[in-house]
């Protein structure tokens, strides 16, 4: 008399598991493949590192905006610092208002001080300070990809 195998060793269940398992692996692979395909590996975007020129070009207590790179180069009494001009709300380009001495966003009315702190508006965060350095040629270099804690002035 042959003894029947338990249900879990059933040949049909075994092949069903193999089939579903390989379909699952294929589906997961497809998700990874699609994600990788949709993420570009090479971008033709401007470099995050910007050369803003000689420090002497900036007067003391001045705010200079570079529209193309979206940064402010500020020369305060304490030294130089660079501020992102991209609003932390939804990414509009803010503008420096010389008369009021504030940075204002035209899209949804956020206002910031010269050091990036929010005065009013929907912006959730202050404007980030960007890493500044001096090149071997004596030019001011701003790295837009690196945020630094505020109030770290660059003294030259």
């Amino acid at each position, binding site marked *: 008399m042959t003894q029947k195998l338990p249900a879990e060793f059933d040949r049909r269940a075994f092949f069903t598991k193999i089939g579903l398992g390989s379909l699952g692996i294929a589906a997961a692979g497809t998700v990874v493949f699609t*994600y990788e395909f*949709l*993420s*570009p590996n090479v*971008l*033709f*975007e401007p470099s995050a590192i910007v050369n803003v020129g000689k420090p002497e070009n900036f007067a003391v207590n001045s705010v200079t905006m570079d529209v193309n790179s979206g940064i402010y180069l500020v020369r305060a009494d304490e030294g130089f610092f660079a501020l992102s001009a991209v609003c932390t709300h*939804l*990414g*509009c380009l803010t503008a420096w208002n010389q008369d009021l001495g504030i940075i204002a966003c035209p*899209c949804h009315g956020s206002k910031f001080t010269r050091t990036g702190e929010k005065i009013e508006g929907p912006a959730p965060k202050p404007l980030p300070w960007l890493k500044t350095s001096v090149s071997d040629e004596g030019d001011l270099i701003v790295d837009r990809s690196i945020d630094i804690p505020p109030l770290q002035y660059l003294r030259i």
Partner: protein
Amino acid sequence: MTTKASRIVDKVRGSRVWRSVFRSGTGSSTLHRALAIQQNVFLHLFATKVRKRMVRFSSTWYLGTLTLGTFLILVITGILLMLYYHPSVPQAYADMKDLQFVVSSGLFLRNLHRWSAQLMVFLVFAHMFKVFYRGAYRTPREFNWVIGIVLLLITLLLSYTGYLLPWDQLAFWAITVGSNLSSAVPLVGSKIHFLLLGGNQVNANALLRFYVLHCVILPLAAILFIAVHFWRIRKDGGLYVQQSEPKTQAATDGTLPAKEVK
């Protein structure tokens, strides 16, 4: 004159070629008319028979049909606009201007596309309000309401992706702001933003991605869901009419919605 014309029509409809295409027959009996609907690939989505009060203007204001009308206008004008539009930087802006000032009827087609798009969004909302306030979303039509929500989202996404294509300042900043909304998604927000734009900023990749979404992916999704939406009208017992389904009448009603299988 009338008899001569109708004789010609009858002759055409009785011809072998006509009968090979439309197999419902030449008669005008109820059966023939029902078969004409049932055996047509496009019309078979709809019921072969509707109550007169279902198709009265007052019951729906024809808002759904009008929405379909604007969608068809958008598909036709959109395909024509594609013949002169290159989704590349900065050519896209120049092509848009060429459509306005150089291409014959280009201005008309572009404006027709734009105004139909505005009208479609308005009509979708009007249609939904009408359905909502009449209570036409209730059982057994609740799933068709959900499909309607999906169609609303597709309509809004079509509007949004189309907004970038002129590649002017308005388009650029609107998409900059709009795509930044996706960054607010917890954990994967910045990844979604990156995939949506194909980069970190609104650029040539973003223009191309929005173009493909606008011209291929979203319209195909819309057509698919529109088909299901129309088919469900029949499956859910036809267009909703107030007091059309009293419980006593329901038992003998031939147009009952499909019963849930227990």
